[in-house]
């Protein structure tokens, strides 16, 4: 009268845990020594585990889908069907050593996963294991900065010396816009104020191609929204577009020209609806008021890649969605753009992307009927090869004092792909307004 252990085996030197895939026999079935009683998976390989004694398959401790450490009691075989078997007592008698206790179910499976999955990834999750170049570490030490809080733009997210220098410079640029919220603001030039707001997953550097020329005559205020660059990233469920408009309004002390691209254009529209007195003119670059299914799908993939992979991979994914064939066919331009996108991606952490994605989802479709009330001179720049915001053209039509400039061969990322054409269109619009 006794029972036999079915334990998670150690099949190789490096195996530390395995997942129960299947118990092929029903409870109570007779078992012969050598017969398969358990199927497990380890490192993506399935293995059939044989009974070490004959008898009756009596009890299951670990259900299919659960992952446990090697040595963990998974099931039991009793000698006969009618003998007494106390499952708890047997388990207590065969408890594995402390270190081999069953693990909390892994990220993808089981009850414990939901709590982990619901919590947004903090910056630490992305920075914890990132490599840091020695030169970056040395500079951070010299400047008394926490190198682990600095996003990395190198391969595998490596923090480079340039990242530390940029971080240090950017810290000088924080401006308080709401209680406890400071945003990173880049300023250039002198003249009438022009507010620049970047799109989803972009930062103020997206307007770099326009800044040099516009800063000759205007005072540029390029803002990184919440969760982007060095701007504060409060732990909110979503970053709301109306709230972003309030943040932006706090930066304007007199009527300004407002320019936004994509998500930035959505914020600009919201700003026009809520703070019309602060706006002299509006420039909406590839805007949307209702997110297309494709836009939402690309944003979802964008978030997932940002959470799991490195900036270069994300850039490679994004390029065909953002640019037309002209840029993609030009080897040099493509490589430069990919480098720029990767560097920008490193400054837009995944947690912030998720919150903006949630903000876009709730805002989408709420402002279509309000467009007609906008009384501000508006330029709408639309791109002929734009795959993401097909409603751009309808927005211009709905705003009374507006004109549309179409840039035929460019994609959604038109400020980069057709930089000069966009700059020229903006200049003309600002001169008129």
């Amino acid at each position: 009268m006794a029972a036999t252990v079915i334990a998670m085996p150690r099949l190789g030197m490096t195996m530390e845990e395995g997942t129960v895939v299947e118990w092929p026999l029903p409870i109570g079935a007779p078992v012969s020594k050598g017969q398969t009683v358990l199927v497990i998976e380890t490192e993506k390989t399935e293995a059939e585990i044989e009974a070490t004694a004959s008898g009756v398959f009596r009890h299951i401790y670990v259900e299919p889908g659960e992952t446990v450490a090697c040595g963990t009691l998974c099931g039991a075989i009793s000698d006969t069907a009618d003998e007494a078997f106390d499952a708890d007592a047997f388990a207590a008698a065969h408890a594995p050593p402390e270190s081999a206790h069953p693990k909390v179910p892994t990220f993808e499976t089981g009850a414990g996963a939901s709590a982990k999955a619901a919590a947004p990834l903090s910056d630490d999750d992305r920075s914890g294991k990132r490599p840091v170049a020695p030169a970056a570490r040395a500079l951070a030490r010299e400047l008394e900065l926490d190198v682990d809080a600095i996003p990395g733009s190198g391969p595998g997210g490596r923090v480079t010396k340039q990242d530390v220098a940029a971080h240090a410079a950017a810290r000088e640029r924080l401006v308080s816009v709401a209680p406890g919220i400071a945003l990173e603001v880049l300023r250039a030039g002198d003249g009438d104020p022009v507010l620049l707001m970047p799109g989803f997953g972009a930062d103020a550097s997206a307007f770099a191609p326009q800044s040099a020329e516009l800063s000759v005559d205007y005072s540029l205020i390029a803002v990184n929204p919440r969760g982007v660059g060095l701007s504060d990233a409060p732990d909110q469920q979503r970053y709301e577009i109306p709230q972003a408009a309030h943040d932006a309004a706090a930066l304007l002390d007199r009527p300004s020209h407002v320019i936004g691209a994509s998500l930035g254009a959505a914020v600009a529209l919201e700003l026009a609806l809520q703070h019309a007195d602060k706006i002299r003119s509006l420039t909406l670059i590839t805007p949307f008021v209702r997110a297309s299914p494709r836009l939402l799908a690309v944003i979802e993939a964008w978030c997932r890649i940002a959470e799991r992979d490195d900036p270069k991979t994300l850039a490679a994914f994004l390029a065909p969605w953002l640019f037309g064939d002209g840029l993609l066919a030009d080897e040099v331009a493509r490589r430069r753009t990919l480098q720029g996108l990767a560097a920008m991606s490193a400054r837009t952490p995944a947690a912030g992307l998720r919150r903006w994605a949630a903000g876009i989802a709730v805002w989408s479709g709420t402002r279509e009927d309000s467009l007609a009330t906008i009384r501000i001179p508006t330029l709408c720049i639309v791109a002929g090869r734009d795959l993401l915001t097909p409603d751009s053209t309808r927005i211009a039509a709905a705003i009374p004092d507006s004109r549309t400039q179409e840039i035929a061969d460019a994609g959604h990322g038109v400020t980069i792909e057709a930089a000069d054409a966009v700059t020229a269109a903006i200049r003309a619009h600002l001169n008129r307004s």
Partner: protein
Amino acid sequence: MSRELSLGQAVNEALQIAMETDPDVILMGEDVAGGGDRTGDDVDEMGGVLGTTRGLVKAFPDRVLDTPISEMGILGAAVGAAITGMRPVVELMFMDFIGTCLDPLLNQAAKFRYMFGGKVRVPLTVRTVTGAGMQAAAQHSQSLYWLTAGIPGLKTVIPSNPIDAKGLLLAAIRDDNPVVFCEAKMVLGSIAEVPAGDYEIPIGEAALVREGGDVSLIGMGATVPMCRSAAEQLARDGIQADVLDLRSIQPLDEEAILATLEKTGSVVVVDEATPRSSVASDIAALCVDRGFDFLNTPVKRISAPHCPVPFSRPLEQAYIPSIDRIVETVRGLA
């Protein structure tokens, strides 16, 4: 005044100047006279297997000596001549043959000055041909400069161009220590405007031959032109490279290496030799050891694989470090 000369011709000119300015300078080696007629001028002597010393026997009939085919004999005689007042320049036809004559170099020439308390000078120069690229196969294509560079008491230099070749060889011949002068096959035929007259390039000084600031490409001998070409390609992508020509492998210009590392934070060493115990590895170690806080990217080594040089042309070309490998490596850093 300067003329266009190949690296081989620049070596010849340096030898001629050295022999004109110092009667103690003698040449020895297999066919360095090459059966040339010492009196008549109707015989076109060979001047070594690659013709580098052609013409010298006519100018200095008693001082250019053909030897038997015995590297041990050549080096043994040369070391003896050096410590007894001559300033011999010997030709070791290919550096691959160094195994047959290592003792006179490793245990005699390299040790005498030290062991005799500085009372003995060993003004010996060993000219030798190194490297792949001519389908000379596994026994005639090796880059073994790392071997002599690792022996205390020997100096080892490897010019990348005719101008440096002339100045370095004159400095080597006039050095009171044994110097191994490597002529890399792939640059032997390279052409440059070489200044006329007598000049020396100090042994132990690297040359920054291109100024960039984004990445440091460090080469020696045949890999320097590769680094320069790679730098031009990278410049089209907006990546500006420093190119450092080591010129001297031992002594190694550590300060020049650390200076370019400090400037760029990124070092790629391009070495024609095999990677184990190599100059490239030595420089990588130097960067980590003395330049750790400057490093913004991993130090990358581009070298031959740890394998003999193949005879087959496509395999040999794949074996030798290439411009494409340098460009790809640099792109992978950012």
